[in-house]
């Protein structure tokens, strides 16, 4: 069932046991799991079926620290959530991403990759993915990894018919939960705003917050403030340890044989470090994206090399005469070290149309991350030399130690952390089952529970965690 307003939903007299906030990949996946288990569930979606400027305006906010995207551009507020502008890149976090790292504080998850692997066949069906090939080690330091460019499933498009026909799932559009109320043990209700006005309160046995990697923290910070700590009783880590995947052009590579690495349909191949290399260099995970360079770009790279190593340039020019595809651009995306100081706060001066404070995002890249970028590129360059595969040139701003540019990709629009998973209540918000510490009926879905970000795009892991949470809740709610 899909309703266009809370009034229409109320008139239908549907009695859900579970209330899910948000209809993005996490919310939709959990709803489908619960619906399939025969559990009545309502999904409250703040936006409508289509994009609108009015809805997006609720997402405006400010950023303090490093340059970042406008907060109403980097995510979408309508049915299907940010899957509506997802590029489709898929890969689950690496096994090593779940492990604690002695050189990076506050790393390590309370679950392991093996805990989500049983859900991967289901994830492949949802995201329409072929099987992944295993990583290929090209040296002791570098792995050739696979990210799959999927059809970029738009969750609303793909599942709207199924949701509409479901007798156990009600999706209520244009209905924004502005705050949750709680008594320190349970969420007792949600305050709603529907079609531009206050719509009263709503209660259910269980609440699952799936409003996105920025909005989950905002909703819970505001709810906690209004309930005097009754929604997230242990709130030290709430809004903190927020992470992105910083992404910048890192330089060029000249390859002896471009066919050495099979590229995907968009002429890209990906490389990441081994755990041994990360330990030795004390860096975070990273992904180097190798993209075929247009011919004009190749000439520029060779001319540059000729000034430094003329004989080498002569060899490359020969390679070019044999094979037009001998050079590549290198883009690097890397794992941010989880820092409590990277956090979502509530604005003290600016509120949205429903009176909820907007986000003030504090975000800064650390020295460890700069080292990850530089050492990662050098590691890749060294590997190409040792394996006689080619040479790497760092882009000028990296080679010269200059500041990050502000006219590049900047980051992946991947919003992670803020309500991270853990066992220490001072450093986490939810437990290994995504239940808020100290609360009996409040769970969180989505990338805000990530403890670390790894280097892989988050949607695949979000969907796997949602399958796991949906299955867990099916058992909990059925009792």
């Amino acid at each position, binding site marked *: 069932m899909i309703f266009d307003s809370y009034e229409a939903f109320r008139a239908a007299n549907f009695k859900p046991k579970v209330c899910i906030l948000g209809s993005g990949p996490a919310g939709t996946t959990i709803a489908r799991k619960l619906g399939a288990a025969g559990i009545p569930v309502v999904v409250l979606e703040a936006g409508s079926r289509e994009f609108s400027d009015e809805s997006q305006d609720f997402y405006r906010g400010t950023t303090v620290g490093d340059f970042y995207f406008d907060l109403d551009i980097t995510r979408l507020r309508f049915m299907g959530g940010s899957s509506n502008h997802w590029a489709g890149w898929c890969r689950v976090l690496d096994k090593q991403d779940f492990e604690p790292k002695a050189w990076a504080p506050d790393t390590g998850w309370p679950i392991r990759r093996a805990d989500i692997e049983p859900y991967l066949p289901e994830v492949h069906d949802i995201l329409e993915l072929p099987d992944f090939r295993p990583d290929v080690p090209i040296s002791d330091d570098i792995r050739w990894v696979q990210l799959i460019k999927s059809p970029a499933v738009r969750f609303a498009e793909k599942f709207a018919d199924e949701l509409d026909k479901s007798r156990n799932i009600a999706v209520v559009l244009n209905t924004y939960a502005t705050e949750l109320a709680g008594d320190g043990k349970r969420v007792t209700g949600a305050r709603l705003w529907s079609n531009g006005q206050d719509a009263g309160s709503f209660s259910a046995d269980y609440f699952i917050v799936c409003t996105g990697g920025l909005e989950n923290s905002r909703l819970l910070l505001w709810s906690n403030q209004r309930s005097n700590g009754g929604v997230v009783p242990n709130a030290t880590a709430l809004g903190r340890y927020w992470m992105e995947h910083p992404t910048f052009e890192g*330089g060029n590579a000249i390859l002896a044989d471009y066919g050495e690495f099979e590229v995907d349909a968009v002429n890209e191949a990906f490389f990441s470090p081994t755990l041994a290399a990360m330990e030795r260099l004390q860096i975070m995970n990273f992904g180097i994206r190798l993209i075929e360079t247009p011919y004009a770009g190749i000439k520029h790279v060779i001319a*540059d*090399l000729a*000034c*430094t*190593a003329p*004989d*080498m340039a002569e060899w490359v020019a020969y390679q070019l005469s044999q094979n037009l595809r001998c050079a590549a651009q290198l883009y690097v995306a890397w794992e941010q070290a989880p820092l409590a100081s990277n956090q979502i706060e509530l604005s003290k001066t600016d509120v949205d149309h429903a009176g909820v404070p907007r986000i003030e995002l504090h975000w800064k890249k650390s020295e460890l991350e700069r080292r990850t970028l530089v050492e990662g*590129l*050098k590691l890749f*360059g*060294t590997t*190409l*030399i040792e394996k006689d595969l080619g*040479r*790497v*040139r*760092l*882009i*000028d701003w*990296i*080679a010269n130690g200059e500041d990050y540019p502000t006219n590049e990709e900047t980051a992946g629009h991947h919003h992670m952390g803020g309500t991270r998973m853990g066992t220490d209540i001072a450093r986490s918000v939810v437990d290994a089952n995504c239940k808020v510490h100290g609360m009996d009926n409040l769970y969180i879905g989505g990338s805000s529970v990530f403890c670390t970000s790894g280097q892989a795009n988050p949607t695949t892991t979000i969907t796997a965690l949602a399958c796991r949470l949906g299955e867990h809740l099916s058992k909990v709610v059925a009792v």
Partner: protein
Amino acid sequence: MSFFKKMSRRSIVQALIALPALSLFRKLPDANASDSDPSHADPNEIVEVNGWILKRSDLA
């Protein structure tokens, strides 16, 4: 000063253009990074020159 006065403006300009090509002015790896005697330097040593990650022997 007298040496430069004897040179034409054209010669001075040509000399200035040629200067960066002289090995004296090329940014080569730090001599202290390995052996100060180039003949003893490891040709497989990884060096970073002008942003390029290279083998020392690439610089030959």
